[in-house]
């Protein structure tokens, strides 16, 4: 069972904050190989998984060939343009294909969201200390 310790990062309000950051592997169709991605936010509040633009460009030939969408969050009137692609992820030895929003921006952190992502697993957030992920 993969287990990931929460990682401490800087926060404007709290000084330091621990976040549930996990590691996934992602398959690059352009390089025909797997890359690891560290510090992916396990986010049950995200409908879809998301990757920043430069990272997406190292995985698919042309990110703009994906279905264009606008993603909204909690900030009023703020929208992010994304391109939806089906990518292959791997956690431990489990491979799965999921829709991923590749952002038209690098100001977006990698997120593993629910649809065909987190929802495939039993995920336990242990008191801000670690995240356990079971098939």
């Amino acid at each position, binding site marked *: 069972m993969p287990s990931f310790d929460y990682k401490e990062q800087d926060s404007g309000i709290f000084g330091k904050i621990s976040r549930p950051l996990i*590691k996934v592997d992602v398959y690059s169709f352009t390089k025909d190989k797997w*890359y*690891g991605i*560290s510090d992916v936010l396990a*986010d049950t509040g995200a*409908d*879809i998984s*998301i990757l920043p633009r430069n990272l997406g*460009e190292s995985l698919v030939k042309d990110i703009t060939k994906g279905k264009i969408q606008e993603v909204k969050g909690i900030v009023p009137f703020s929208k992010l343009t994304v391109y939806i692609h089906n990518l292959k992820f791997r956690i431990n030895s489990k491979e799965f294909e999921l829709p991923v929003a590749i952002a038209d921006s690098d100001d977006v952190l*990698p997120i593993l969201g629910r649809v065909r992502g987190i929802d495939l697993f039993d995920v336990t957030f242990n008191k801000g200390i670690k995240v356990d992920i079971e098939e």
Partner: protein
Amino acid sequence: MGKFYEYEILVGDKAVARGRNLKLMLEEAEKKYPKKKISIRYIPPEGILIAILRL
């Protein structure tokens, strides 16, 4: 963390490059470590993280 995002290239657990030009850093790491598995870490800017995404 600073005011702007950065990427870090890892070979095993060792950071071998850090910056914003991910493509160049990946190319250099792949030349230098052709048989090693490479990982990418996104380092976000400092701030409060509220990530709720909906399509």
